[in-house]
């Protein structure tokens, strides 16, 4: 009976998969037209960035790819390995400088930023901003001071109650209202801030989980050695808590990358946004499937690369596996 059921399940699934593969092949060979992807590759990568300056975002992306390759496949030891985290941190300001210009480079207005470059900039920028805010919020929520504890808790819970699209939309509308008159910030920066404020609440909860996993005896041991509370936090508790939180922080980072696509609804031409404007072009009318498959592949690759990098970091930080 069981074996019979097993076989029929296999049979039905094989038939289904066969049908699926056949229709995909049929579509690929007879119906699909990849012009919409192939002829617009530069747009997907850099958006409407000035043609003579395109080497700048491209250079940044090549540097990123090289760095990913070096991190994953490079030697496990060596003078560069020690600096790897710092090099990674430096990629955000480097990207910002290359894309925005200034300091010897010709300035390029944020209106011309777009494509995958913008997607990456949004992810990097808001992630880097959200992490410290999230750690502070987590510490605040565990603070002995009621004012700090209550305000951190309220912030975290309220932020986690609202949908991201609302935070982004109101970020565009409201952030200028909270700034002193005369101080204006552009749409991209507003988006980065809104993403960071949103992600910080989730990061705070992940970090708090890590903090809770550290037994109080660790603080005691640090205190007995004469370490101040601040030193104990910085040298003993936080390094362990962040390591425990790393897998969930990775999920947040991958989520952040995916969520940057929401800015397409709010008028930024990041990867999804530029595709939507391409699909509105009469030349490419109806080529939804080609574009969506192509985008899915790009997002999937980027997210998988991120997950792999994080897994790599996790192994390197594991004291039992690293051979320092």
């Amino acid at each position, binding site marked *: *009976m*069981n074996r019979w059921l*097993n076989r029929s*399940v*296999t049979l039905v*699934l*094989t038939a289904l*998969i066969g049908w699926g593969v056949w229709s995909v092949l049929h579509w690929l060979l007879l119906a699909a037209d990849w012009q919409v992807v192939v002829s617009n590759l530069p747009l997907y990568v850099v958006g409407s960035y000035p043609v003579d300056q395109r080497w700048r975002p491209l250079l940044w992306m090549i540097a990123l790819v090289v760095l990913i390759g070096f991190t994953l496949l490079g030697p496990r030891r060596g003078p560069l390995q020690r600096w790897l985290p710092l090099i990674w941190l430096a990629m955000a300001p480097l990207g910002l400088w290359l894309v925005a210009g200034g300091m010897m480079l010709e300035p390029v207005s944020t209106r011309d930023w777009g494509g995958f470059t913008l997607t990456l900039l949004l992810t990097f920028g808001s992630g880097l901003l959200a992490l410290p805010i999230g750690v502070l919020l987590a510490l605040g929520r565990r603070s*002995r*001071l*009621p*004012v*700090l504890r209550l*305000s951190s808790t309220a912030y975290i819970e*309220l932020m986690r*109650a*609202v*949908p*991201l*699209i*609302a935070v982004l*939309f*109101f970020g565009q*509308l*409201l952030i*200028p*209202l*909270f*700034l*002193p*008159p005369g101080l204006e910030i552009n749409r991209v920066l507003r988006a980065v801030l809104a993403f960071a404020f949103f992600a910080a609440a989730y990061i705070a909860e992940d970090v708090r989980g890590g903090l809770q996993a550290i037994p109080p005896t660790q603080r005691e041991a640090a205190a007995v050695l004469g370490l101040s509370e601040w030193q104990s936090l910085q040298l003993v508790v936080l390094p362990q808590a962040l390591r425990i939180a790393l897998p969930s922080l990775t999920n947040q980072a*991958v989520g952040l990358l*995916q*969520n940057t*696509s*929401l800015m*397409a*609804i709010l008028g930024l031409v990041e990867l*999804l946004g530029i595709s939507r404007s391409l699909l509105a072009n009469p030349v490419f009318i109806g080529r*939804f*499937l080609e574009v*969506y498959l192509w*985008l*899915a592949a790009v*997002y*999937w690759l980027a*997210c*998988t690369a991120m*997950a792999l990098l994080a897994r790599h970091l996790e192994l390197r930080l594991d004291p039992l596996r690293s051979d320092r």
Partner: protein
Amino acid sequence: MRRRSLLLQVGVSVLLLAFLALLVNNLAVNLLRTGLGLDFGWLGRPSGFALAESALPYTPSDNYLWALTIGWLNSLKVIAAGLVLATLLGVAAGAARSSSNRLLRSLAGGYVAVIRQVPLLLQLLFWYFVAFLGLPETPIGDLIQLSNQGISLLGMPLSVEFCAVLTGLTVFTGASIAEIVRGGVNAVPRGQWEAFRSLGLSEGLGFRRIVLPQALPAILPALTSQYLNLAKNSTLAIAVGYADLYAVSDTTITQTGRAIEGFLLLLISFLLLNLLISGGMAGINATVLGRMRRSR
């Protein structure tokens, strides 16, 4: 020691208050400058926009409050249906991942791996523009009639937008639920599987009656947060033109310019929605745990 912490407390409070005061002051200055004050009177004025679908009668001459209520009901409709379908899909996929059939197992694994690494918004656009708008114009099927004008399920008409949002939310959330179910199931000792197999129970029956009940206490809390995510994600409906709460708020704010009031209303609506879901789940949790304790 105690004095110091009191001083610290006061210091932090002053800093926080100063920061808040600065923000509120900026806000007040800006609102004065643009001639807008905090006011909810506009809620009673006619909205002037039409909604593609509404559970209760609605015309553009109805007021904003009623429009927002309709949006809230539309949200509730897609969220409720999504919760049920995503749970079914998720449990099925999660169970399939621990199945003894290798093909079924890897198919479920592939589903989870692909869906979770692709943005939900992109998936929604796919379901809307490719899957549902790609249907033929004249209905096909009998009990379930499919066309790009709408879907009729046993005589019940559903809009294409609703179906796209529902499918997208179901497939996306189902993948996360599958992971949760798998995690919970893996936490049940392998001996339990061997035990029911040795008693001659079938795989399906054993999974439903023996393994799943034991996995539930670990699954339910994680499930709650997925349900809350689904509710929040339903706001992406705006991308395919489904008139949910957020879409209506968006239009309302664009028309009236009342961003702060609109944000407060949305915040309250979502707090309510979250309360509804977490409350319901807490109830389910209590019943499940209670039943398990009694049966012991």
